[in-house]
């Protein structure tokens, strides 16, 4: 079960195919609306999935899991910010924007991990799905607070954060964090999944579950192309920063695995999932929020890091690694 034969799961291979297609400069072209449609479908499906699980979850464990999700969402960006600022590779505002991405999560990575565990017959707790839905928002809030703090440090007019989103987002930071499109879709679908009677949810099963893995493969094919396009940009941004895109997930995974295995007492599967959540960086929800509220930051930095470096690293190398880490921690603890 060990070794890279673990990687021979369709989701990872389609990611690799897309990556390769772009690297060899194939003219394979995805229609833009297909990528967007697939990401909406995946958020809806995973939200419902999580909601159904939440509906039959142990309430105490669920609250426990949500608490730790929020903790991770608050802690990881601060950690990332401190590392980035002290590395002196980026200014404080770019550091804040990047940090927010690493406190949030990548649903694509999470679902690949799910496919990986299922492929290997490893059971996992469902609480991490709930954590996934919860973790998007705190990281955005912290990112915006860090940006506001950096602006004050840099002497930029403090009302800027407010006016940055003027006309549209009067109540500013919280609005940005909780009304973000993917947060609304994921959380909304989760509520629907939790609230509707299971017999009535059954009609959604083929759409939300049966064709899920195929749609994920198609999505990852596309994301492979996106990642390959961006990985080339890392030269422009310097090796030190690119290294951050690899080291930060490792640190995140360790913290996540400790939270999953020890604080939450999950098994190997669930612990792997929490490690993956902590290790992954958002490339759906956070970038638009940062675009709007931290316009001073350079989008190509945070998109290249999260989509071009951390995402492929996690999908190809990270997941099996975090799985072993989870085995070690759960094994040591038991």
């Amino acid at each position, binding site marked *: 079960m060990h070794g890279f034969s673990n990687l021979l799961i369709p989701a990872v291979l389609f990611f690799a195919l897309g990556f390769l297609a772009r690297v060899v400069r194939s003219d394979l072209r995805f229609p833009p609306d297909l990528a*967007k449609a697939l990401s909406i479908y995946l958020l809806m499906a995973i939200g419902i999935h999580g909601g159904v699980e939440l509906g039959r979850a142990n309430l105490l464990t669920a609250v426990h899991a949500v608490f730790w999700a929020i903790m991770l969402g608050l802690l990881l960006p601060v950690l990332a910010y401190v590392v980035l600022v002290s590395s002196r590779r980026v200014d404080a505002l770019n550091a804040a924007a990047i940090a927010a991405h690493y406190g949030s999560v990548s649903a694509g990575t999470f679902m690949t991990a799910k496919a990986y565990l299922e492929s290997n017959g490893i059971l996992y707790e469902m609480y991490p799905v709930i954590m996934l839905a919860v973790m998007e928002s705190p990281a955005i809030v912290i990112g915006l607070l860090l940006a506001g703090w950096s602006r004050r440090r840099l002497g930029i007019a403090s009302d800027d954060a407010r*006016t*940055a989103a003027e006309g*549209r987002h009067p109540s500013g930071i919280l609005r940005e964090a909780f009304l973000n499109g993917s947060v609304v879709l994921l959380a909304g679908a989760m509520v629907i999944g939790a609230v509707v009677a299971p017999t009535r949810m059954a009609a959604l099963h083929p759409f939300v579950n049966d064709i899920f893995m195929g749609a994920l493969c198609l999505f990852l094919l596309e994301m492979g192309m996106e990642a390959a396009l961006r990985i080339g940009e890392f030269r422009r941004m310097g090796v030190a920063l690119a290294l951050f895109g690899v080291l930060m997930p490792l640190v995140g995974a360790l913290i996540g695995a400790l939270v999953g295995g020890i604080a939450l007492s999950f098994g190997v599967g669930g612990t792997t999932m929490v490690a993956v959540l902590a290790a992954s960086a958002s490339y759906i929800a956070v970038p*638009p929020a940062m675009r709007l509220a931290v316009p001073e930051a350079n*989008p*190509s930095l945070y998109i290249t890091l999260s989509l071009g470096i951390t995402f492929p690293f996690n999908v190809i190398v990270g997941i099996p690694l975090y799985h072993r880490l989870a085995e070690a921690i759960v094994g040591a603890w038991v």
Partner: protein
Amino acid sequence: MKRLCPEKLLAIIGPSALTETLTDMLRRNGISGYTLLQASGAGTSGPQTGMLDIDSNIMLYVILSEERVPALLDEIERLMRKGHHLKAFVSDAAVLAIE
């Protein structure tokens, strides 16, 4: 051609995350008509492949009379000074008017 009325065409290119910011700006300036195109592209802020919401652009066209241009340019400039990645340009257009 008398029925062709000389006006200005303002084009704004930017990330789709700014769509509402820009259309709200128009509304605040009393402009209720615009046309919006989905776009991709590339620039100093990297490639914008149009694949995800995070890397899609929009191209916004506004036909307007010359005297309304400066107020809008002021606002766009303000957004750009804050760091937003926008391209804006103005050109002449002879607009068909009836009556």
